[in-house]
């Protein structure tokens, strides 16, 4: 046998000359192939339709329907599209050979046959075909697995939401109950637990929002809002997180934009908290808002280590920052920027990162 497959490879041999058919049948049959001889193109097409072989050996010079024609028709059928065809020809000129390839053949064998050459070419193309089919099957199987994985991911995130809410709310109830009676240590412990629960909730929201955005399932509540006002709120909330970093806003007047205020706020929150996290002690972070020809631009400048060129694309992909975060402990699984990108795209905007001058980086987005 020539392949590892349990079933012998099947070869359809098409030739109007019975002697040729007999020769090839005994030759290939002797090598363990399952040979199916037919004497014309019509029968060949029927045979492939009924049960596609692993390979077709096709004579070119036949009455009624020549080999080129048979091959071209075969390639238009679902059953025959992927079956390799080797032409059998007495013609040796280049034009005829080219025509054979053009008709969809993978190879040709010239008559009179050199036995070893026939066997070598047949074996090669059958092995190739089988490898191709295995790859296609493997690919299809992987797609199914990937689909399952995606569904499982959704289910897990979905099912996490009730317990997360129960956890967060009951910690809050507990906080109200023990207020005034518990020790300072107990209160601190509880506050830490509440923050962790909020962090978990935030992650679950991020994951779910990303899948909703990916599927175009995120309902956008568009309204005319002032981006400067939103940015100021975010700066007020996050500016005090790290007292060693100075955060300010660079804007004149209002920047009115038609968008989902809540989602845009979260994009700015993400960019700003990243900027603060990556700032050196005494660093300065600036949120600049401007009207541009493209629309409304929000840019967050930091003085951090900057983003290497090769990472500038990947950084906005899902889990794109996961591999690059080592020592910094952050409540993120590398989804923040993926969320930002999808959220901005949902608004038909663009997002990117440039090198800062003289140092750091500028994460920016523009909304129409």
């Amino acid at each position, binding site marked *: 046998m020539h392949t590892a497959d349990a079933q012998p490879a099947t070869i359809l041999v098409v030739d109007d000359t019975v002697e040729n058919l007999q020769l090839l049948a005994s030759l290939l049959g002797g090598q363990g192939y399952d040979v199916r001889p037919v004497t014309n193109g019509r029968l060949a097409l029927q045979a492939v339709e009924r049960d596609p072989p692993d390979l077709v050996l096709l004579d070119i010079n036949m009455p009624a329907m020549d080999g080129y024609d048979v091959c071209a028709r075969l390639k238009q059928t679902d059953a025959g599209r992927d079956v390799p065809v080797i032409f059998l020809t007495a013609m040796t000129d280049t034009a005829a050979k080219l025509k054979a390839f053009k008709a969809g053949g993978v190879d040709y064998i010239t008559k009179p046959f050199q036995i070893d050459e026939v066997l070598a070419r047949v074996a090669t193309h059958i092995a190739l075909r089988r490898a191709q089919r295995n790859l296609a099957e493997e690919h299809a199987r992987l797609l199914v697995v990937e689909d399952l994985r995606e569904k499982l991911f959704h289910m897990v995130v*979905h099912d996490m*939401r*009730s*317990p*997360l*809410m129960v956890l967060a*709310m009951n910690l809050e109830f507990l906080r109200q109950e023990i207020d005034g009676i518990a020790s300072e240590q107990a209160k601190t412990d509880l506050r830490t637990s509440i923050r962790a629960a909020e962090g978990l*909730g935030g992650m679950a929201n991020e994951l779910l929002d990303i899948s909703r955005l990916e599927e175009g*399932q995120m309902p956008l509540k568009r309204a005319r809002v002032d981006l400067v006002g939103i940015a100021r709120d975010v700066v007020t909330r996050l500016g005090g997180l790290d007292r060693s970093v100075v955060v300010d806003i660079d804007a004149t007047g209002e920047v009115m934009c038609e968008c989902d205020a809540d989602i845009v706020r979260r994009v700015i929150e993400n960019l700003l908290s990243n900027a603060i996290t990556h700032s050196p002690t005494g660093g300065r972070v600036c949120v600049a808002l401007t009207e541009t020809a493209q629309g409304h631009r929000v840019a967050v400048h930091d003085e951090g280590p900057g983003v290497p060129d090769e990472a500038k694309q990947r950084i906005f992909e899902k889990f794109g920052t996961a591999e690059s975060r080592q020592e910094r402990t952050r409540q993120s699984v590398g989804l923040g920027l993926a969320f930002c990108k999808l959220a901005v795209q949902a608004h038909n905007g663009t997002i990117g990162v440039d090198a800062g001058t003289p140092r750091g980086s500028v994460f920016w987005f523009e909304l129409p």
Partner: protein
Amino acid sequence: MTASPPPPIVFIVDDDANMRDTVSRMVRQLGIDVEVFATADAFLAHQRPDRPQCLVLDVMLQGSTGFDVVAALAEAKIEIPTIFMTGSGTIPMSVRAMKSGAVEFLTKPFDSAALRGAIDSALELARAQRERRAELESLEALLGTLTPRELEVLTLVVAGRLNKQIAHELGVVEQTVKVHRARVMEKLGAASVTDLVRLTERVTALKS
């Protein structure tokens, strides 16, 4: 319209015991009475009190969905403003919820403020529906005091017919019509034909 309504009550249907405990506690913290149910059937079988009420319903229930419950309520002609809770606020789901007549759609996790907002608008709607029903009931009771013949006269008067025409249509003398008409005005407390028209139009509007 009526005396101040009895205190409201919120019903919660969720198959997750932890969620039932948590959401019911959140509602109680808002100072509102609450009753919980683990299944849609238990809620549907429950004898509901005569109080302004709303339903907080999990979309994903064991063996059925919140949409099924809403459909069953509509089928039984039970009018109760409904708030959905869900783990995934996708567009098709929120559209479906709103089409089914939901007042609000809460995506878990939600906080007390979001729950309060939803319950406030649901109960406001419940009170409005309640007032409508009460008004309709009292007007129908009033119309119920009319005899079949008086009702016929009322219908024709409201349709703009003159006494003479009504007498002809009913095959009675005009004087009889006048007597019926006076009694209709008196029973319904109407001072004019305009009052009669207003009253019947109101009944039609309340029924729609």
